[in-house]
């Protein structure tokens, strides 16, 4: 069930990442790395999707292990998308790093456990929170962190 919710939030971004954009912007293999240059608004939408997904996971009636697995799955998708979707503007890249950064700190583990989740939240708290002061962030991001904390500690 949780997989369906994740896909509802991510189907758009995953599909977008898999095809060439309609306006002709490049996407593919270049010097061994995959990337597409996309508009800032698209990147922001992906972040908003991630935030919404975490919201839904937190509010779901699932067991703690299922929630952790869903968070891990979400992270993996965000990570892949973020790594291959670039902006021309360094300012946008910087903001997105602040927003998605904690996802990238998420440990890649075969068996995603409560301890990993707690490590993740701790990283997030140390590395993300202090750097966002005065920087405009997307609505709902701080709520997402609270949800995450509840999931990790739950």
């Amino acid at each position, binding site marked *: 069930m949780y997989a369906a919710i994740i896909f509802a939030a991510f189907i758009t971004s995953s599909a977008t990442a898999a095809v060439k954009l309609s306006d002709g912007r490049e996407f593919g293999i*270049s010097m061994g790395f995959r*990337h597409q240059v996309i508009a800032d608004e698209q990147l922001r939408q992906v972040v908003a999707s991630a935030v919404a997904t975490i919201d839904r996971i937190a509010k779901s009636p699932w067991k703690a292990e299922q929630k952790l697995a869903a968070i891990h799955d979400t992270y993996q998708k965000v990570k892949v998308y973020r790594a291959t979707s*670039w902006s021309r*503007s*360094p*300012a946008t890249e910087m903001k997105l790093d602040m927003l998605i950064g904690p996802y990238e700190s998420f440990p890649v583990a075969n068996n995603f456990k409560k301890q990993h989740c707690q490590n993740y939240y701790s*990283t997030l708290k140390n*590395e993300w929170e202090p750097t966002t002061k005065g920087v405009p962030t997307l609505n709902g991001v701080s709520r997402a962190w609270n949800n995450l904390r509840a999931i990790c500690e739950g």
Partner: protein
Amino acid sequence: MKNVILILTFLVLITNCVSKQPITIIFPDQEKEDARKPSGFFDFFKKKEPIVTLMKCVNCTTPYSEPNTVQLETEKSCTSDRLYYQDRFKKISNVYKLKRDNFPEANFPEGCVVHIMRSAGAYDTESPYLTQCASEDSAPIRESDKIKAHKLACTTSEYAYSTYNAFVDVMDCLDIPQRELLPKIWNESQFHTNMYGKGDDAGVGQLTGDAIQEVIKQKYADHEITELDYFKAEMRKSNKPSCNRILAEPSAWKIIGAKPATRCGIMTPEANPLRNILYTAVFYRVITARITGIYYRAGKEYIRTADGFIDRSENKNAPLGGRVKEYQLIEKMQALGIQNPNMDFLKQVLVSLAFNAGSNQAVKVFDNFLKTKIANNLTVTEAELDFINANSLRDKPLIDIPDGETEEAKVERETKLAEARSQAFDRNLPQFLRLMQNGGSPGYVSKIAFRTTKLNNEIGAGLCTQPSFLQHSLPQAQPQQ
């Protein structure tokens, strides 16, 4: 009563003359007398003692030393309010506190460390950053309404050699280029064990709680072994004399808590400065492994690959792993026209930045530099990667917050800053990092480059610095801070 005071005064003067302690004179023909005036009542009775000259230099004059000469201070040449740790320095083991006549591991002179220590100021006035610890298990005592700050601890032979010997031993044992960290430490603590920053960053390495946590954390999730334990075990395998000397100092290996309440554990002598320098080097190794995939095993560096380990001493430019590989930084540099990326340069920049801004931020900001160049169809030259020569100051006025800035001026500055950030793809790497570094001190790597050039200019080119440090190629010139 008057007569008694006169007799006592006479006795003190006589005792001082008779009990003059012999000291180590490195160059007896260069002995000079310190012209310093006493600051306390009892300082008046101190017998002036020859100070010790370590080396001549290009342009390195510091207070109370001969022009262009690096000199140690002595217990008797320092005022009493600078001797607050001297008794503890004297308790440090002879292996560390005495000058070593035979020290083949050292590849830079002690004068480099002493010059950095003596450039810290606070000879005649107190610094709020210089603190004192009551014990190892306490918090450093900061300046307050009731407590006075401290002056610079007297750079005696015991203090200087316990710092220099510990630094060289730890760097040699852990296979860290000895001169690579000198400019960084100048920029941080200036090698003073009681330097305590506003962010609770402590001692020689200015270690924060997060940095200490990296050292004492479990190396493997399901094992009790800490990072410190791991390095101890690997050092045992090395058979290096430097490692053996560190292993023979049990106090260096004590686990120190990461909370500020116990920060003195990595500050107070006699266990420090050795313990602090050991923690600093382990922290360096932990973040280096994370960022570059370079691991320490039995005294040497290896790069972990899918097929095993590559000995870095046999292949210095073997492609890095870790986050460098994960973020495909080498491929991105090649896409931008740097055909043969310099692995040492990558390691130096990323690890230097990680010390200040964290591992994740260091890699991300460097990655963003490369990505936004590629996204804008630009190329990069080696000159744009040169922290020693390139001008990094272009956007500094937008980043530095002026004293007394009005709300109107702030809005104007921040608007210009946002515009500069959106256009930062046209900056060189030092400019980009200053503008886009998120967290820590903007321009941190450029500040280390500045200290590198300062060392070259003040002590002599190449004596205290790593060749081509923070340069993708080899030219030398003057960086701006």
